[in-house]
């Protein structure tokens, strides 16, 4: 489970002064459900997810991930989280297997468990044909599978995906979305951010719309349709975001 409590992040910018990238965000993600964080570029999605993955530290507020506080016990949180984004690249000079094993060891797995896990994941994701190939020689699809294997090697109960399909071709993107569904079906808590409406419509149990660092609205797709009287998520998104966007532009 993930519980964000007043999660906030401020940055200092030399030209623009203080920037509130994430401003008092509260939400809850349940096990076996997918929470979709929907927002435009620069809305605060990545910063929110980085704070949940303890890559960044909140300026105010906190989040509880699997019972651990992201501020107080960041290493425990990371041991229970699989984090995947298009920015999480592979070590190019390691083979696919070495790469996954490295993260397994960092997650404290002993050699016997690690071997079993790696063999299982490589078979399940159909990766055996390139397990000894260096990561810089892999195709985009193979790279994505290797990244997925990395997030799974320690079998974390929470999965965080930051725009995981960004810039990927349709087939590779489908591999990722299928994997996200599989995580949910296996009872994992899943949160993922995107600006692609169709992905949210297909995958998410709960949708949170974020703009200017603020979580503006939250609910299931059905609840949002009823509330805003629109069927298309894109229309709902525009209705929610426009007043804030206009105010922001005016500033």
């Amino acid at each position: 489970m993930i519980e964000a409590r007043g999660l906030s992040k401020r940055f200092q910018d030399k030209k623009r002064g203080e920037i509130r990238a994430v401003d008092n965000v509260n939400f809850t993600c349940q096990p076996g459900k997918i929470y979709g964080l929907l927002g435009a570029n620069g809305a605060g999605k990545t910063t929110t997810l980085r704070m949940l993955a303890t890559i960044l530290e909140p300026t105010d507020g906190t989040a509880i991930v699997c019972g651990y506080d992201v501020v107080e016990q960041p290493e425990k949180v990371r041991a229970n989280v699989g984090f995947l984004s298009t920015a999480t690249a592979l070590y190019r000079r390691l083979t696919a297997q070495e790469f996954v094993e490295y993260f397994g060891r960092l997650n404290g797995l002993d050699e016997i468990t690690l071997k079993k896990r790696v063999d299982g994941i490589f078979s399940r994701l159909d990766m055996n044909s390139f397990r000894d190939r260096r990561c810089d020689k892999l195709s985009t699809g193979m790279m994505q599978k290797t990244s997925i294997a990395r997030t799974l090697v320690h079998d974390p109960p929470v999965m965080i995906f930051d725009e995981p399909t960004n810039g990927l071709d349709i087939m590779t993107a489908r591999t990722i979305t299928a994997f996200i569904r599989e995580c949910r079906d296996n009872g994992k808590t899943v949160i993922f951010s995107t600006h692609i409406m169709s992905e949210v419509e297909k995958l998410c149990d709960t949708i949170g719309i974020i703009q200017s660092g603020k979580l503006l609205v939250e609910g299931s797709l059905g609840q949002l349709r009823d509330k805003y009287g629109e069927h298309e998520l894109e229309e709902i998104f525009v209705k929610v975001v426009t007043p804030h966007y206009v105010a922001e532009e005016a500033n």
Partner: protein
Amino acid sequence: MSMRNIGIVYRKELTEAVRDRRTVVSTILVPLLLFPVLSVGFAAMAVALVGKAKDEVPKVMLRGGADSPAVVEGLRKLDKIEIIPDAPNWKDQIINKEIRAAVEIPTGFQADVAAQKSDTVKIFNYEGEMKSEFATEKVEKYMKDYRDTVVKERLAAKNLPEAVLKPFEVKQENVAPPEKVSGAAFGGLIGYMVILLCMTGAMYPAMDLTAGEKERGTMETILSSPISRMHLVLGKFFLILTAALGTAALSVLSMGVSFSVLSHYAGQTGGGRAAAATFLLKLGPKAVFSVFFMALPVAVLFSATLMTIALFAKTYKEAQSYLTPMTFIVIIPAVAAMLPGVELTPKLSLIPILNVSLLCKELVTGTYHWNFITIIFLSTCVYAAAALFIAIKMFQRESVLFRS
């Protein structure tokens, strides 16, 4: 502190490093090949060039001397010199290297010598030009020998012994053992080499493991793993330290081998280098161990400092532009220690790099000033610890890790 986690990071970084062509070239191949290529290659070239210059029969122009036939005849009989007649453009001919020198015998020279009047024989040459200087030496030697003969004849005519001109001798005699003598001459070089190569060895991995990781997008991947940032930075640091010490060790080894090969090769012609070779062979494990023991905190200082600076950069190229000036900051004190007359004082023993460089000069001559060794080792350890502490702190700063 989990040594297991530090070890995991270290092993992974080592695997990546040995698979990276640039790292292998900068930390293994360059130090191994630099000295053989530079010293043996350069010496072989120098020997060949000098030999060729000595084999040449230089043309020397004779100016005047018509009334001094004996002197002229002596010059003409000189081995491996071609005496050519006077020409008005003699200066240009020397400058254009058509002739190597010109010798001017003053009018009435032989008669003046006989009358015990003083004259000046001038030799014109191209200063700094090797072949011209060889020709000058030959002519000058002939003229000096002629002068000595004249002096001897004059003394004999007056029944005076030759000792009249040399009432007593002045002689220098060395009492320092040979290793101390060569240590004083070449000792600074060892310290300088080890310090500089610790620096260059650490430089590439320091950039690759920090700015390189940011550039390749793996920083976020590793930060999302449960390893603490302190363990991560220490794993990286130990790999950089290994590269620094490895490069220095390989270089000293390669330098020793090159010089010993050189001493056989250069033989008589390379007196200085042969002495260096003998010196290095005489160094022995104790001196080498002492130098490396003192270099250890310096390598820690470099590794941590370079890593911290490179971490600020977003790209490999940016890191390069930050670290290249660091080479000069290191070279200056290391070179200063090699200057003659610069010796250890309590104040100098607190200046990083310079102190170790000066101490290495003493260590290789077998002189162990324990008070200085203690001060320098401890002060360098303090600097190194501070640098490592800053590196760990920097790795925990988001503004550094995610600089945009």
